[in-house]
């Protein structure tokens, strides 16, 4: 399927924005940037219905939430713990996302929980019979947790409408994929659950998008879950302060050539969809928008003690059911 110009343009807008976002947020202390992995994020979450749910991997999570309609300034305010954030500063906004956009983040620092929980969202979707689907992503390091195994198996047993995407960026902190996983591809794990397993060049955002969309179609049709190994590379360090001096030079260099933004640009110009100047324009606009959002968020106030909510522990009890 050759993608049309509109699709390519939309994807480009998002990848370009993602690049700026990840690069600039990557300068904030403690942030885990996803520079180089924007292709996976955009390809995974583009083209879904508002009523579908997503549960993005923490690396690239803000881009994903923004794609669902969340406001950039408020998202960034969440990274900074400002009162203007969606939680008024109560939660780590770098990894926890506003669920009102049908976007699940991490409510704790524990990897794997979103895998379990998004599987439950898919269970609800299957009961609703509204053909909603869930798309969830996670790192290849995270795929070594029991939560991965139990979730995929449960989803397969109940034929749940969910797509599992491994954002396989070659590293978990300093641990290389080839140290921590002895399979050839994470897709090899699918067979153990009797579900399709697909390996995709994650840096090719078009291929990524198409692979996810066919898995989504499958899920929507009630045919159950799919596992996608989206192969990419962590250009950033694990987090802002990581010198990232442990990636072999040649490995890094070869991946830099496969940068998803470069690949997409080349395609856009080759297909004559946009000129270099137009591309630069879009990048400039993204840069301006995000710089502005960061500046605003930084200027936003810290929460006051009224946010502390010592008595706000429980959701009020339902007196009577509907």
């Amino acid at each position, binding site marked *: 399927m050759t993608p049309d110009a509109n699709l390519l343009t939309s994807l480009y807008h998002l990848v370009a924005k993602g690049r700026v976002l990840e690069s600039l947020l990557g300068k904030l202390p403690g942030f885990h940037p996803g520079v180089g992995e924007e292709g996976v994020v955009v390809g995974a979450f583009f083209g879904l219905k508002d009523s579908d*749910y997503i549960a993005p991997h923490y690396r690239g999570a803000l881009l994903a939430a923004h794609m669902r309609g969340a406001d950039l300034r408020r998202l960034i305010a969440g990274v900074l713990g400002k009162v203007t954030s*969606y*939680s*008024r500063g*109560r*939660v780590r906004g770098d990894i*926890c996302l*506003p*669920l*009102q956009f049908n976007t*699940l983040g*991490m*409510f*704790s*620092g*524990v990897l*794997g*929980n979103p*895998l*379990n*929980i*998004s*599987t*439950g*969202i*898919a*269970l*609800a*979707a299957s*009961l*609703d019979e509204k053909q909603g689907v869930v798309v969830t992503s996670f790192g290849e390091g995270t795929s070594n947790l*029991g*939560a991965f195994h*139990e*979730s995929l*198996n*449960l989803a397969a*047993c*109940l034929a749940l409408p969910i797509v599992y995407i491994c954002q396989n960026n070659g590293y978990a902190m300093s641990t290389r994929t080839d140290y921590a996983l002895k399979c050839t591809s994470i897709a090899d794990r699918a067979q153990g659950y009797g579900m399709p397993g697909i390996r995709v060049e994650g840096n090719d955002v078009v291929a990524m998008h198409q692979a996810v969309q066919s898995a989504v179609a499958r899920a929507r049709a009630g045919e159950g879950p799919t596992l996608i190994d989206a192969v990419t590379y962590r250009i950033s360090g694990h987090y802002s302060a990581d010198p990232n001096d442990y990636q072999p030079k040649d490995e890094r260099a070869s991946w830099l050539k496969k940068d998803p933004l470069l690949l997409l640009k080349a395609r856009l110009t080759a297909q004559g969809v946009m000129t270099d100047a137009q591309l630069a324009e879009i990048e400039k606009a993204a840069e301006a928008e995000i710089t502005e959002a960061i500046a605003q968020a930084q200027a936003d106030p810290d929460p006051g003690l009224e*946010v502390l*909510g010592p008595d*706000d*522990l*429980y*959701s*009020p*009890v*339902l*007196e*009577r*059911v*509907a």
Partner: protein
Amino acid sequence: MSQLTFQEAVIQGISEEMERDERIFHLGQDIGPIYNGAMHSAKGLGAKFGPRRIIQTPISESAMVGAGIGAALAGRRPIVQLMFAEFLGLGLTPLACDAAAMWYKSDGKVSVPLVIRVLYGAGPHRGHSEDYQAWVASVPGIKVAMPSTPRDAKGLMKAALRDNNPVVFFEHMALYHGARQEVPEDDYVVPLGAAEIKSEGSDVTIVATALMAQQSLKAAEQLRGEGISAEVVDPRSIVPMDVETVRRSVAKTRRLVVVSESWKTGDPLSDLTASIAEELAGEAPLKIARVGLQNTPRPFAMPLVRAAMPNVQTITEAVRRITESN
């Protein structure tokens, strides 16, 4: 009204609520109509509600709890049966680290109406008696019910199913198929966080839940014969804890005996004891005695099981110890 066992009362509560509320479904291992759940903990539900509402799962406690949380976030009101409290640890991380915090951390945008059912307590089963209640009770945001009678069990289950927060519901195996009790068929609930004075008295306050509440009532009866008037308070839910009812009782008796089938370190009843002491020990002497499970892992052979646990004798001894001296 009908005479129900604890197990029947729990099922009746679930069944009534499932009829009333389409959003409730039940997840668990072997809870379908073939097996009806460990110890018949889901008896009849599979036949009545079918496989779309009584959903069997593989042996995957972490995914089961996660699935319950996710479905709750998406508008359902799931019940997850984990068979035994012994398996709580496997699902603890999504429950305690994520679900418990969602209401607070989302600034009130999302809630997790989820009931986790677990069997526990020294009973007919070989093992599986550990409660590990501290694991869930120690984390703010999770409610914990621990009923001692069929009537409370049904009413608390109905309250749990109407609650918008995660509730862990403990079902004691020694009470499960035990004494029947009149249980109303109408729409009553027993609110979480409301202790009940199971027996009034003026000399000493005994606090206990579940099987220990029953043992304490027996102890109180025996003590009455000795001229000691014991008030037995059953908190019924461990979280929220109705400190106020206990405080009022102890303010009157100035003597507190806390009986627990759990280990003391980390026992929510230890926190209750500390709270009462904090409030009441400052002005005048306050006599306190605690009777708990032997501070070792639970042994297996029945004579050892029994000897490691509080019983009527150790409860009455504790009461006498703090009433004798004046």
